């Protein structure tokens, strides 16, 4: 087994590595613009006062929490079908990012519960679904860490991602049913549609763009890290097998 026999990883590194710093800085700038705009230069909302400003972090992070999982799903499918190692490693790389996004969405959602419902936590369908998603992320990350064989780990975590996705969608409906019954209408959750006024919407868009760029930058960075880590392991394994150590 030759180390760089996978042409993909090398090409991936060569192509993406120079972009990562640019993307990082760009996302920092876009995020800064969006967040500062949203925090300082938007009015307060009628019902929520200044707490409406939480949406500038809650909405984009919730968006990315879902998108990260979707990306992992696609990457897992590509791995299972086409066996591109970069794909499997990209899914592994994206998981902690998605998990942190979910955590942020949960925390901001819960804190916003105070002005909304007068409580620090509520078993609102959206919040509950994100809590379950958080658990899915935990299990996925833990499974990657637990399996020593890299290809086996990629396969098992991909299958888990697939099955998990089905159950995550199932849970979404189950949780809606659980909280509202099948007959009731709109949930009390923090709905994007509530804040359609342009003065809120545009900085929100900027923040979402910033989060997307940050996600991209982080995943590219982390996938590169995974590829390098895999190469280290492969080199060490080869050295161990051949007993060759150059002084």
């Amino acid at each position, binding site marked *: 087994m030759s180390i760089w026999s996978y042409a993909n990883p090398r090409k991936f590194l060569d192509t993406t590595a120079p972009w990562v710093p640019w993307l*990082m800085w760009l996302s920092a700038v876009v995020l800064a613009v969006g967040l500062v705009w949203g*925090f*300082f230069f938007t009015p*307060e909302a009628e019902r*929520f*006062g*200044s*707490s409406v*400003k*939480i949406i500038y*972090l*809650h909405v984009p*992070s919730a968006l990315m929490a879902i998108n990260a999982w979707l990306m992992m799903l696609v990457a897992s499918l590509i791995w299972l079908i086409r066996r591109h190692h970069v794909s499997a490693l990209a899914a592994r790389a994206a998981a*902690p*990012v998605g998990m*942190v996004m979910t*955590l*942020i969405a949960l*925390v*901001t959602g819960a*804190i*916003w519960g*105070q*002005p909304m419902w007068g409580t620090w936590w509520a078993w609102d369908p959206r919040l509950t679904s994100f809590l379950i998603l958080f658990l899915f992320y935990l299990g996925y990350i833990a499974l990657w860490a637990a399996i020593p064989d890299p290809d086996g780990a990629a396969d098992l975590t991909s299958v888990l991602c697939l099955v998990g996705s089905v159950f995550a969608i199932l849970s979404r409906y189950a949780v809606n049913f659980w909280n509202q019954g099948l007959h009731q209408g709109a949930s009390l959750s923090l709905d994007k549609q509530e804040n359609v006024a342009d003065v809120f919407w545009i900085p929100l868009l900027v923040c979402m763009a910033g989060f997307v760029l*940050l996600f991209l930058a*982080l995943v590219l*960075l*982390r996938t*590169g*890290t995974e590829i*390098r*880590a895999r*190469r*280290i392991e492969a*080199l*060490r394994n*080869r*050295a161990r097998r051949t007993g*060759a*150590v*150059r002084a």
Partner: protein
Amino acid sequence: MMDLGKYAAEVISAWGISLAALAGLVWWSVRRDRRVRAELERTERDHG
């Protein structure tokens, strides 16, 4: 700091935790990347 009204605590804590989490994630990712790059260089020198 502008007057955040009666929800100041909520806004500050939400923003504070979120930004800290993001910063932590970025910092950890970058640090890990640097560490792995150095390790790879070392390993390639010895075994590559």
